[in-house]
């Protein structure tokens, strides 16, 4: 890529970032993506830390881990997979599969007296 190409790309990035920050209907800026990744990293660190203080957390361990897992899941799907910004139809299609899977296997585990 030539120097002029790089300058054009940088200008396009600045324009893109400004547009996304102000209008809000486009994909988020790179800065937002890095912010989300930092949150994900912190949550992962908390998950691992909670594993090591299992005895202190007691009955709270499993709910805490599950909540952190769900938050991470939602952050990736909403921001990195752009469901937050895309058509609702994509959300409906994906959530249908997800809810069906959770329902079917929750019923299966209940049948086998897992809980």
């Amino acid at each position, binding site marked *: 890529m030539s120097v002029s190409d790089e300058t054009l790309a940088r200008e396009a990035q600045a324009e893109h970032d400004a547009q996304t920050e102000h209008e809000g209907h486009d994909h988020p800026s*790179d800065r937002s993506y890095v912010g989300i*990744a930092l949150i994900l990293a912190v949550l992962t660190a908390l998950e691992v830390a909670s594993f090591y203080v299992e005895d202190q957390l007691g009955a709270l361990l499993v709910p805490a881990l599950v909540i952190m897992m769900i938050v991470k899941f939602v952050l990736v799907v909403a921001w990195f997979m752009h469901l937050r910004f895309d058509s609702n139809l994509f959300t409906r299609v994906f959530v249908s599969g997800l809810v069906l899977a959770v329902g079917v296997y929750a019923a299966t585990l209940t049948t086998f007296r897992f809980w």
Partner: protein
Amino acid sequence: MSVSEQTAPPEVVADRADHVPHDAAAPAHHTSTGLSNEKLGMWLFLGSECLLFGGLISAFLLYRSKDVEGMVGPAVGDLYDIPFTSVSSFVLLMSSLTMVLSLSAIQRADHRRARTWLLTTAMLGATFIAGQVYEFTSFVREGLGYTTNLQSSAFYTLTGFHGVHVTIGILMLVSLFVMSLRGRLPAERSETVEIVGLYWHFVDIIWIIIFTLVYLIPA
């Protein structure tokens, strides 16, 4: 598509279909939904993949709590190396960031940066797979083979299926990298990167679930 929709400008058709285009630079889709069929197909595929991985995770959870008495070989949970797997999980998580940065770069026609992020994503994925191979090898050395007990079969099937998905993702990323090098991935075709990205992020969210339910939550 109705006659009025056929004659209407694409953006009007898109509005009627309750769709706000997320990328103003992306071409309008002349489909009955106003959305990209390829992207919709990928979301359908990912929805169905939830059922596949749901079944594998459920099977593991069931078998982990069974056969404790009289079980042959070590229990999977006794062999976990949590610090090592945590690093692997972090690597895969960060590959989602590099993937989305690659998409962002190609959407603004910054092809060199897009290629850099694509290659970084593929390398992070390969690092994760290398970690999985190391983990499997160390488990086998400890006497936990695929058919040692029900737990081990369920564990290797679940994590192995996930590993195969990551490997397929790496192949797709390398293909995109080569396409970009040959100039066959212009900004107008950024949706191809987005669709591969959806697959890659899905593989990541499945690992988020596996890491918590299989590794961190005690049996």
